């Protein structure tokens, strides 16, 4: 018998059995056999249901995770925006406060001045110089004195040493090349205030018998030709006496904090 004939015979046999089942199903005689097959197949049915339900849950959780990730990313971006806005708002409030102080200062002072903002401050040269955003076009000239405001009090900052059309460089009082004639109003004592390249300054050439004490305010004397008289420079914090030296020296802290310079005032008249 050929391969195909055998296959045909088997097919006919299997079809006959199927047909027999179909006939028996008409008379409900097949139920027992069907139950038997169902008994064999039911584990696979329940297993498949469980597997696919778990798969469905897994895919739902996966989608939820994706959604949460996206939401998290968006919230982080929003948070960044809010942080930026918060910083901006604090800066604006600070600037507003500073401008208000300048306005109040303008009303009570006898000087004419130009307000400017600090543009550049070199980290290597922190206590030596700063660059501001106003220059010759705004009326700034070399050697003009510069002050700054801190709270209700003003303090000397330094003087202009370089001017370009739109920017100027200020030599700070704390620079070691900086020197200004200081005056103690309480005891009417003059001396030279020199910078040291740090946040402290030195009040020099004071005779030992002079009446000075810690906490004394030192202002500009107005005798140097550059700085007008009466601008606060700093306060004495301690004294240094050197053996065999004819003078004593005092250490000053500036009247204003040189670490947080934003707005400065260049005195023109």
């Amino acid at each position: 018998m050929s391969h195909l004939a055998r296959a045909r015979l088997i097919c006919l046999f299997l079809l006959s059995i199927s047909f027999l089942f179909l006939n028996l199903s008409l008379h409900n005689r097949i139920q027992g056999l069907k139950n038997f097959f169902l008994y064999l197949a039911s584990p696979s049915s329940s297993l498949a249901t469980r597997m696919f339900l778990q798969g469905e849950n897994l895919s739902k959780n996966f989608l939820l995770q994706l959604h949460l990730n996206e939401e998290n990313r968006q919230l982080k971006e929003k948070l960044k925006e809010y942080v930026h806005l918060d910083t901006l708002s604090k800066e604006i409030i600070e600037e507003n406060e500073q401008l208000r102080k300048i306005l109040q200062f303008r009303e009570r002072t006898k000087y004419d001045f130009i307000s400017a903002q600090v543009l550049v401050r070199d980290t290597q040269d922190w206590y030596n110089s700063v660059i501001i955003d106003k220059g010759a076009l705004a009326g700034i000239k070399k050697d003009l004195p510069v002050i700054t405001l801190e709270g209700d009090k003003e303090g000397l900052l330094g003087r202009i040493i370089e001017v370009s059309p739109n920017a100027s460089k200020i030599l700070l009082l704390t620079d070691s090349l900086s020197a200004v004639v200081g005056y103690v109003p309480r005891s009417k004592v003059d001396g030279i205030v020199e910078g040291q390249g740090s946040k402290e300054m030195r009040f020099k050439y004071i005779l030992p018998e002079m009446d000075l004490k810690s906490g004394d305010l030192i202002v500009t004397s107005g005798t140097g030709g550059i700085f007008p008289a009466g601008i606060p420079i700093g306060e004495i914090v301690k004294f240094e006496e050197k053996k065999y030296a004819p003078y004593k020296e005092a250490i000053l802290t500036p009247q204003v904090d040189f670490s947080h310079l934003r707005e400065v005032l260049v005195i023109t008249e």
Partner: protein
Amino acid sequence: MDVKTIFFYFVTLFLSLLLQIGFRNLLSKFTPNFLLLTVVSISLFRGVFVGEFFGFALGLLSDTLSLNPFGSQAFLYTLVGYLVGRQNGKIDADNSVAQVVLVFLVTLFYLFGLFLLITFFSSAEKKLILFPELILNIGFAVPFFWLMKEWFNLWSPRR
């Protein structure tokens, strides 16, 4: 036929049933007929003997789980196994177009056959609904044939 080959066909039978039930539970209404696709692919890849026996066994199992007259699926899957199995070696089983055309013809034949058998052997009213299953079967034909081929290669049973 050795034990490994018989075991392979048994596992294939079981997995195709799992796939069919699982998809039916998942999609509830319209699903591809994975049992039919399994019979077609196994008959085309393995020939007429395997096709008709596999079709008969899978049909019987399917009959126990369906409300159709008992024996109807066995009858149709056996016939499909025999007819497609005869094409073994005559049709390029790796050709996607051949796979789609074959699945299209076999699904049409199966649905008409099932409709007739239900009409003759059941009192239940049956409408001939061709399109969802026909389209789904065609859509799944190529990936399913690829999957089956990989599955055969995994076991590499004796041809």
